[in-house]
């Protein structure tokens, strides 16, 4: 059940971060200062992504028993958290694709209209998933090290 909750939280995080990035980009259109703030905001988003990825991994690994099954699940925590963020961003991209599709007359729909939203979603999934994987894997490795250290 905890695994499912972490997956849902990761999906929500990925979806939310994509839209936050979109609005941070809009800020960059306003002025030179706006562009600077936009770049700084994007840096903060990436830092938050690393931290939240680690936080999700911590939730996933908290209270893990020493059984073989939970140890096997704990080994893939980093990729699991990053994958859920990826899925969230792709889902947001699909929604953007639907926005584009519904606003384009049927006669003008071409390959680009169909591919723009999902393509952006895939790219954002990779870009936002990578820091989350790093944050979650760091927590996973540190916990593994600590556990091994305490066993000695």
């Amino acid at each position, binding site marked *: 059940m905890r695994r499912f909750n972490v997956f849902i939280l990761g999906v929500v995080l990925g979806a939310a971060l*994509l839209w936050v*990035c*979109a*609005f*941070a*980009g*809009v800020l*960059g*259109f306003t002025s030179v200062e706006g562009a600077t703030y*936009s*770049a700084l905001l*994007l*840096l903060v*988003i*990436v*830092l938050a*992504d*690393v931290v939240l990825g680690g936080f999700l991994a911590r939730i996933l690994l908290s209270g893990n028993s020493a059984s073989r099954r939970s140890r096997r699940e704990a080994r893939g925590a980093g990729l699991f958290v990053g994958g859920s963020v990826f899925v969230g961003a792709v889902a947001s991209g699909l929604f*953007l694709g639907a*926005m*584009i599709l*519904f*606003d384009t007359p049927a006669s003008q729909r071409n390959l680009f209209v169909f591919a*723009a*939203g999902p393509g*952006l979603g895939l*790219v*954002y999934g990779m*870009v*936002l998933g*990578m*820091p989350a994987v*790093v*944050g979650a894997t*760091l927590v996973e*490795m*540190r916990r593994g*090290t600590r556990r091994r250290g305490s066993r000695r």
Partner: protein
Amino acid sequence: MNLFTSWDVLGISLVLSLRFLGPFALGVSVIAWTALRPSRADAPRSRRRGALLLGVALGLLVCLAPVVLFLATDVFG
């Protein structure tokens, strides 16, 4: 403003954000990985320090790449 008609602004802003977001994601990931990963206890101290400095320098370089490129195109372009 209708939500479904605002896709053009949001889409263009997403594409333009990638210029900064991509390098930032890679740079911050490299810095976080080299600075925070648990190192082996038997690894030499000087080697650990060298790897940390290299990772942080590389990460900062990647993070600053879009800023430097913008300044360069502003000056020379």
